[in-house]
Every structure is written in structure tokens, then in C-alpha cells.
């Protein structure tokens, strides 16, 4: 069978838990071989979407195909083509790392010899070979996550679901997990990633769907989403509260949009259109006016700002 162009296709997914509408018609298309980020606040429906796409839950309405198979009618075929890394490291803590991988390999029906070979390969690849015999309960959080990833990769599945894979990890462990994910994608795996860390989506994902209240409210590459907030911003930090008004007026002259003044932090920010020209002009004007500047620079909006902007708007419109 030819590889489908989209590894994940969801159309109008609906799911209700009691009075809560977890998914209210979610549409999603993830091109094969890419990392796609599913961003949203707590309770937006990210985990429900992943549970449906991984056959753990049945949708009330809508359809979804993963790796070319319907998640309800062909659940078993889907299960043979996916891996899931959930919010908990779903591994056996009493057994050793190698024992875990061999057990899961056998449950994937690899047969005893191939399961053992595959376990050794994965332990090597996820840098767990030294701890292969140790009980997983003694692993660090990052090691446990890597073992969890390894277990999800036993079949080298075409589609991998990662539900907040770095929640609760320290920065070092987070980097380890990111490296592992990048290596998987280099090998051709499609990854659907849910996360609350916008930095994580920014670093890993080619495409992002922002979801809120069970629907997609914005979609695009991280850059496209950032542009929706008006491109680059100029940021000025001051030492002297007395010069705040004068500085804000000068920044307003070079800005392409409204000026944000944070009187407490003595910071002024505004969107600008011409990068270098705006910066040069602002520096010169501030200098001419005798305003002492502690720091001045250009920066792109963070995904956090995009995210807050989008979800705020949602709040207002409903």
C-alpha cells in the first residue's frame, strides 16, 4: 500500500464526557514525516484527541484515519502502526529496562529472538545499555522517559504520539528527550506532539495546531503563527522612571502598532515593521532626547505571546 500523504487525518471529531464537550469538531491533518504540535491550555482537548487517535477512546462523532486506517473500524491495524508515549512513563518499574523492552517486543509479536535483538538495539540507541539490567524504579525521570520512548518505537511505527512527553522533567532530561525525538523524525517517523511548553513546539514542530475548547483555533508553522502577532517587536528597558513618558513617545514614532508600557519593570515594547531601520531610528531619537537606555533590542514574539493572544481572543468572542 502506498504511503498516505497525511499520516493523521481527523475530521469533525466530537467527544463528550458528561457535561463537558472535550472535542467539538476537531479537524487535523498531519503530513507524513513531519512533527506536528498540538498546543492548547489545560482542558483544551489535547489528550482526548490523542486518546481517540490511538484507539484508547471512541469518538462520539467524526472520523479519523491514522497511517491510512480508520481508528474505530480498523483499530487493530492502527495499533500495529502507532506508538504512544503518554503522560505517565508507562513502563514496568519492577522489571529492568531490557526486560521491559523484551516483554513489549513479544507482545508486539516479534518472537523471542527478534524481541531480544530489538531490545538491545533500542537500549543502545537511547543510551540505556549501561542501565539495562537495573530495575526501572531506580531510573531517573529522563531515563524512564527514554525507555518509554524506546518501548513505543519497538515496531518502528510510522506514526508516534507524544502526549506532553517532557512534563515534569528537568531541562537536561528535556533536552535528552528532544534529541531522541529528533532522531526518530530523521528516521522518517511522523510525530504528533501535544505540549504545554511552547518552546518545545517551537523547537520540534514543523506545523502547529492551536486548540481551545475542543476545536482548532489557529494553524500554521511557528513563524506564520508569530507573524500573526505583527512580526518583530522593539523592546526598550530604562533605568530612570522619569524618562518613561518621553521614551514611550519616541518608541511610538517608530512603531507599526500600539505601544505597551510596563511602568513597573520600566520596559516599553511595540511591534515594528522595518527591523534595522526602526532600531537605528529609535536609538538615535532616544539619544537626542537625552533618555538613558538600560537595554534596547529587537525580538520576535514568543509562541507564548501568540498563544495567549489567540486564546484571549477566543475568550472574548465567546
Amino acid at each position: 500500500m502506498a504511503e498516505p500523504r497525511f499520516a493523521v487525518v481527523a475530521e469533525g471529531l466530537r467527544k463528550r464526557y458528561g457535561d463537558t464537550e472535550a472535542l467539538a469538531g476537531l479537524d487535523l491533518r498531519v503530513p507524513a514525516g513531519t512533527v506536528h504540535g498540538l498546543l492548547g491550555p489545560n482542558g483544551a482537548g489535547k489528550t482526548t484527541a490523542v486518546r481517540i487517535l490511538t484507539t484508547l477512546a471512541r469518538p462520539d462523532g467524526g472520523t479519523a484515519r491514522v497511517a491510512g486506517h480508520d481508528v474505530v473500524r480498523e483499530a487493530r491495524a492502527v495499533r500495529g502502526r502507532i506508538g504512544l508515549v503518554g503522560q505517565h512513563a508507562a513502563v514496568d518499574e519492577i522489571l529492568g529496562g531490557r526486560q521491559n523492552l523484551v516483554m513489549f517486543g513479544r507482545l508486539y509479536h516479534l518472537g523471542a529472538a527478534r524481541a531480544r535483538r530489538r531490545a538491545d538495539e533500542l537500549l543502545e540507541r537511547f543510551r540505556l545499555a549501561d542501565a539495562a539490567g537495573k530495575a526501572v524504579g531506580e531510573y531517573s525521570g529522563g531515563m524512564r522517559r527514554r525507555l518509554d520512548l524506546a518501548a513505543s518505537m519497538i515496531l518502528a511505527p510510522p506514526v508516534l504520539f507524544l502526549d506532553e512527553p517532557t512534563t515534569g522533567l528537568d531541562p537536561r532530561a528535556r533536552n535528552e528527550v528532544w534529541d531522541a525525538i529528533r532522531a526518530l523524525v530523521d528516521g522518517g517517523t511522523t510525530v504528533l506532539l501535544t505540549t504545554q511548553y511552547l518552546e518545545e513546539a517551537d523547537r520540534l514542530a514543523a506545523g502547529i495546531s492551536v486548540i481551545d475548547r475542543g476545536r482548532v483555533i489557529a494553524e500554521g508553522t511557528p513563524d506564520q503563527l508569530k507573524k500573526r502577532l505583527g512580526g518583530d517587536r522593539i523592546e526598550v528597558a530604562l533605568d530612570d522612571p522619569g524618562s518613561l513618558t518621553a521614551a514611550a513617545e519616541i518608541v511610538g514614532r517608530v512603531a507599526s502598532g500600539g505601544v505597551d508600557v510596563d511602568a513597573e519593570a520600566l520596559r516599553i515594547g511595540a511591534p515594528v515593521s522595518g527591523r534595522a531601520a526602526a532600531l537605528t531610528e529609535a536609538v538615535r531619537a532616544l539619544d537626542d532626547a537625552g533618555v538613558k537606555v538600560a537595554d534596547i533590542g529587537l525580538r520576535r514574539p514568543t509562541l507564548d505571546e501568540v498563544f495567549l493572544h489567540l486564546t484571549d481572543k477566543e475568550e472574548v468572542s465567546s
Partner: protein
Amino acid sequence: MSGANQGAAASPQAAGSLQTLRWAVADGWTLTGRALAHWARQPGQIAMGLLFPVMVVLMMGYLFGGQMDVPGGGSYRAFIVPGMFALTMAFGMEETFVRVAGDAAKGVTDRFRTMPMSPSAVVTGRAAADMVYSVAGLAVMAGCGVLIGWRVHDGAAKALAGFGLLLLLRFSLIWMGVYLGLVAKGPESVVAVQILVWPVGFMSSALVAPSTMPGWLGAVAEWNPMSATVTACRELFGDPVAGGSWAAQHSVLMAVVWPLVIAAVFAPLSVRRYRALGR
């Protein structure tokens, strides 16, 4: 899951069902192996589990035993050994519960459910491991019983029938353990299960003859499923049997009927609960 069933039905039919059965057995065996590996990694915990009933029997037999008169005659220590066999089976349900609830809470159950493995293996693997553990528990308790003066009087065939009834009770309790494990929030709730198991276990003929209890309590104790198995074992081992109720006089029958009733209630509940995880 109906989705899984439909997925399986989509494969070529005749070879399909045989293949499905083959994988159900293989996957169940893999999970039994997992449970056995747990014991190899936690020998201390296993030894504690096996020796705890021994401690109870020694405490009851030597600490309280001097004051106990067994209706129908015979030593109190020999009287409580069949009772302890049955209590060992009842305590075993806590093991089933803890493992099932632990897998569900840690997300291991969810991982199994996203894998193309046989869904029934989760239970059959657990059941086989628990039965192995129960046989070991009975062997330890029987050894202890022989040391403190308990004997089989009516031959090996009847004795084996008695052990068969004990294992039947344990098998029915697997389903109760699976159901409670899937309903519970996590393995910590085992305390609640103990609060259920202990009174039910002790309010029986296991350690005290119901005829010595207040009337209403004695009646409850005589009809307790635990008592059915205990009394049937005493009968099959050739120990004196006390109690005049219908239940006590037909203990072997009741020791078959009660576990079947328990399994008939909790097996469908467990299956339903497992499927409900996909809602």
C-alpha cells in the same frame, strides 16, 4: 473492545480465529512470565507474602489455641489449618488487586490497549500467575500445617479434591480482584480491599466454629462462601466438621456453587469495566 473485534474479523476468517487464539495464549504466557519475573526481582516481598499466613496460624494456634475448644473434638491447631488455607486464598485477592490497579494507574494498561496484542491476555496472564502463586502459598501452608500436627486422614484423592476447591475459590477471587483493581483509583486503595477481605475472611468457620458465635452471626458465618470451602476441606481431609445448617451439611456443593457465583458476577463486570476504559 468492539473495534478490535471488528478489526480481527476483517482478516481472513478461518485462519484468523485460530491465529487469534494462538496469540491469546502466547500473549497471556508473556504476561505470566512478567509476573514471575516480578517475584524473581522481589524475593523478599514474595517470602513475606508466603510466610504471613504461617505467622497467623502460629499466632492463633499457640497464643489463642490453649483456650479454644473445638466442637466435635480434635486439636485447635489442626482445626485452623484448613481455615488458613482458605484465608490464604482470600488474602491472595489483594495481590491481584494491587497489580491490576498499579498497571491501570501507571498507564501500563493503556499501553497494552494501544498495542496489537490480545486483549484477553491481560487477564489470563494475571490469572495464571496468581494461580501459580496460590499453589506455592498452599504448599507452604501445608508444610507448616504438618509441622504443627495437621494431617490428611482420608487419602490423597480426597485431599487433592480439597485443594482443588481452594484453588477454585482463588480463581473466582481473581475476577473480584480484577474488577476492584479496574474500579479503584490506584494500588494504594488496597487498604479498602483489606477492610473488605478481613472481616469476611474471619466471619467464617475458618478460625472459629460458627456454633460458638452469637446466633445471627453464626448463621452469617455458616453461609459465608469462605465457610463453604473451609468446611468442605475439613470434610475432605477427614477432620471433624461442626455445624448443623444446610450450608454446612452440603459444604462441598456450596464450595463449588459459591465460587461459580462469584465468578459469574465479577467476570462480566470486569470485562465491561475494561471495555468502559475506551469510553
